[in-house]
């Protein structure tokens, strides 16, 4: 019941909020308090999950299983392992920060806002712990609705366009995954006589390489859009820029990780042969994303857009790590997901603070903030450096592990990816310099106030985490290791060595059939 209560706790908070009468926003303070309390409680529960987690074990822990739709072998089946554990903790960690970051920025319909954020948190936690593909898809799709409303109602000028684009883009990818999920369950019934959506039973299916190829594509498309991998990234700049701060924090911090998590948990281990065949192609897209994202970020005049494109670049590293599929690279990829959540989440919070004060997000409108807001500048600097990957801060560990693992797999990819590390330093530091150093060019900037207590509470924890994760990576890497090892073994041991040569003609022939 432990994980179930974890999923339920934000929803309970949302239900309590439904009962609060808040006509004309008279009790906004109470509403915010309840929402924050619910999200902090959820965070405490995620920490309790961590505390109960046995780092020696590779398999699923805290498993709950109950028959749900027996006719189709669908179970309510949840659990955590080393791969999902910290994504759960990250979700719990970022949601209170997101709420705090929009404490004053969101001032109309506060109750609905809080309800949507809490519902979103519930569904996100569900995605990370679901071990039944039906349940997973349910959470995966349900999550779109609160995010759609968050962007569409509380976003910036082009919010409606961004919200609709977000939901249609993501849905278009995921519905094909739905067909693939149904096909898997059906194939299970062909092989074993009964339908099953149980992930671990589906792992054991024996699928022909050409079948794997198509199913992998259906899954990978859904995840590639979510990550997002170039060229499926065009929804991201719109959604990130137009979303309110809390929305951007959750989008960048947690939602993007679902795509990468999906690749690790579903696409690769379910279809190992297809994964082996397609991993280099995925890696090419990842490397292109790393360099392209960085180059585009460099020329952005808008702070939020810059951070959004930096996400494309950073997530490219994550996918590269997954594609390499060895223990170091995958551990690095998961670690990088956490890093990106912390540092990009914090960057969006900081940008939100600036735009709340100045009602602009253009880099050119700022300058010399160090003189006016020294504390904010200090926090900004730490987060910027963590995003670049300075040793001693969190970003370094992830990128290093990924590059190490990728080098062992294919040195060319690692070489190109390393270019992204340099580029990220260029665009981040250049942006930081233009915003914070130099003379105070605008008189409006001269009167800005520094961090308030509430803002410290929103951004402080992220700064602490950036340092802790940079200095004590083993704290996080050790619980991951057994699960990651097992995953890598599962994927690579079932790959038939001859598959590379064998798959190619099959794929071309099945492409011919389609023609």
């Amino acid at each position, binding site marked *: 019941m432990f994980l179930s209560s974890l999923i339920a706790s934000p929803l309970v908070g949302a239900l309590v909020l439904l009962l609060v009468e808040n006509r004309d926003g008279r009790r906004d303070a109470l509403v915010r308090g309840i929402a924050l309390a619910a999200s902090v409680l959820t965070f405490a529960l995620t920490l309790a999950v961590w505390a109960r987690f046995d780092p020696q074990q590779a398999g699923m822990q805290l498993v709950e299983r109950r028959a*749900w*739709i*027996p*006719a*189709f072998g669908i179970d309510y089946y949840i659990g955590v392992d080393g791969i999902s554990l910290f994504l759960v903790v990250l979700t719990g960690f970022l949601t209170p920060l997101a709420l705090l970051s929009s404490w004053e920025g969101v001032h109309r319909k506060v109750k609905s806002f809080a309800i949507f954020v809490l519902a979103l948190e519930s569904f996100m936690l569900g995605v990370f712990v679901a071990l039944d593909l*039906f349940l997973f*898809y*349910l*959470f995966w*799709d*349900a999550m*779109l*609705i609160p995010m*759609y*409303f968050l962007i*569409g*109602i509380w976003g910036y000028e082009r*919010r*409606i366009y961004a*919200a*609709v684009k977000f*939901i*249609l883009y993501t*849905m*278009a990818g995921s*519905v*094909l995954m*739905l*067909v693939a999920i*149904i*096909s898997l*369950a*059906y194939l299970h019934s062909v092989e074993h006589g009964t339908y099953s959506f149980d992930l671990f039973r589906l792992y054991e299916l024996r699928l022909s390489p050409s079948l794997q190829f198509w199913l992998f594509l259906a899954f990978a498309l859904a995840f590639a859009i979510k990550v997002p991998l170039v060229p499926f990234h065009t929804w991201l700049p719109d959604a990130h820029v137009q979303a309110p701060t809390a929305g951007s924090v959750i989008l960048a911090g947690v939602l993007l990780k679902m795509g990468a998590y999906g690749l690790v948990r579903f696409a690769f281990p379910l279809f190992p042969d297809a994964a082996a065949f397609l991993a280099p192609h995925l890696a090419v897209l990842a490397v292109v994303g790393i360099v392209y994202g960085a180059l585009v970020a460099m020329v952005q005049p808008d702070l939020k857009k810059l951070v959004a494109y930096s996400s494309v670049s950073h997530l490219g590293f994550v996918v590269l790590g997954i594609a390499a599929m060895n223990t170091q690279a995958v551990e690095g990829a998961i670690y990088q997901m956490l890093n990106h959540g912390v540092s990009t989440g914090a960057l969006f919070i900081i940008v939100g603070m600036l735009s709340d004060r100045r009602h602009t997000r253009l880099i050119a409108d700022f300058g010399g903030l160090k003189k006016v807001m020294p504390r904010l500048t200090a926090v900004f600097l730490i987060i910027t450096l963590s995003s670049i990957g300075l040793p001693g801060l969190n970003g370094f560990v992830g990128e290093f592990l990924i590059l190490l693992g990728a080098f062992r797999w294919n040195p060319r990819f690692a070489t190109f990816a390393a270019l992204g590390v340099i580029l990220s330093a260029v665009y981040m530091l250049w942006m930081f310099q233009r915003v914070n150093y130099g003379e105070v060019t605008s008189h409006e900037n001269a009167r800005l106030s520094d961090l308030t207590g509430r803002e410290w509470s929103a951004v402080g924890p992220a700064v602490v985490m950036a340092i802790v994760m940079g200095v004590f990576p083993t704290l996080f890497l050790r619980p991951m290791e057994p699960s990651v090892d097992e995953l890598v073994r599962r994927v690579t041991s079932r790959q038939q060595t001859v598959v590379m040569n064998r798959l190619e003609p099959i794929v071309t022939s099945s492409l011919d059939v389609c023609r």
Partner: protein
Amino acid sequence: MPLTALMAVVPMICVTLTGIACMMAEAFRNRGERMPIGGLGVIGLAGAGIAAGALWGQNTTSFGVVQADNFGLFVTIVLVVIGLLTIAFSSQVLERDDVPSGEYYALTLFGLAGMILMATATDLLLIFLALEVLSLAVYVLTAIRRDSFAGAEAGFKYFLLGGFSSAFFLYGIAFAFGVTGSTRLDRIAAVLTSRAATEHPLMLVAMGLLLIGFGFKVSAVPFHMWTPDAYEGAPAVVAGFMSTGVKAAAFAAFARVFLSTLEPMRAAWMPALSAIAIATMILGTMVGVAQTGLKRMLAYSSIAHGGYLLVALVSGNEIGKAAILFYLLVYGLTNVGAFAIVALAGTRERGNDSLTDYAGLWHRHPTLATLMTIFLLSLGGFPPTAGFVAKWYVFSAAVGSGDYLLAIIGVLTSVVSVFFYLRVVVMMYMAEGAAEVSRPIVGPVAALALAVSAILIFYLGILPAQVMTLAADSIATIF
């Protein structure tokens, strides 16, 4: 003849008797007197529901041509639910629009009686009779607002095209009779065991004509032309009633005729029906995108949903048959609710049909906007609503019989449909409303019905297992 021989028609008789009672009540009603005539309908429908429950699993037959098997009874219960919701939403709207309530309820109940008969009939001629009973009731209901030109036009169009399709259907029955010597489904099936019969050219003609007749009633492309006009012109509650009730009854008979009697001719109708299903899904959603009126949009959406039901029909496996039943229930709950909100949000003078009329509804009436959102999300197939489970069920059926093309087109068109459902949501939540639009008033009965629909939609979306088992059991008796 012993009374037990009448058992299978008891649900229909309950509804018919109260329909007659409604007519009588209207005759004795003084001008301006208020009478709870809708209550009579509720009693009749409750009786039908209870009778259907009592007959469950008994597989009784009356006159040899009405069979109360679980399949028919499941559809009967769906129809009872649709009828109850329609009556609950109507009372308030009828008073506002000054529609004579006795006539309205009598016609609704007669229509329902025809639908129930259609779902349980096992003779082509009786199916035709039921079809005519329900159609006539619905034609008149479409044009029931005598002060509305649009309504009269819609009713007339619907009547002409409907009459046309009935002729096709009847002609098909004649050919089937010519080949097999009977109009009873079991006897036709008995003849169709040999190849000589299934490949008989006249039997193919009969099948094609029946297909056209059913195609009209379930508004499958290319026989859908009447749908947008009829739904747009009809009062919104009536549109909700006919988009769900007629579809449920017609699909029940469609499935009964094609999946059991004409099953040996599958090779002949499968390709045609697949093509129709694909065209219906694509056209319904693509044209739906271009609509600016909510009722027209919901009309195209109901065409598209007909397409998804056809996918289940084409797949023809156990899952598909059960999926039809589940889908009809879910679609009934959702679509009646969506049309009801259109009705409630309007006024006597203004139908509030344009999408822009819904701008800022969330600010004027948050509860109504939230309920509309739930209905639209369910129509769009989002979890955790029932619409998701229903679509998933249908696509499972398609995958189970290897129809990947149908499944893929189905999921992709449902993404397109999400686009137009969300346009309403955008209007309600993200646009500022005009100041002069008044806040809609929702009476207690309608509010209760809306709440019940919404709760059922979530119930069927989160815990569908029991109803799915029920649906799966229902098909075991006939196919």
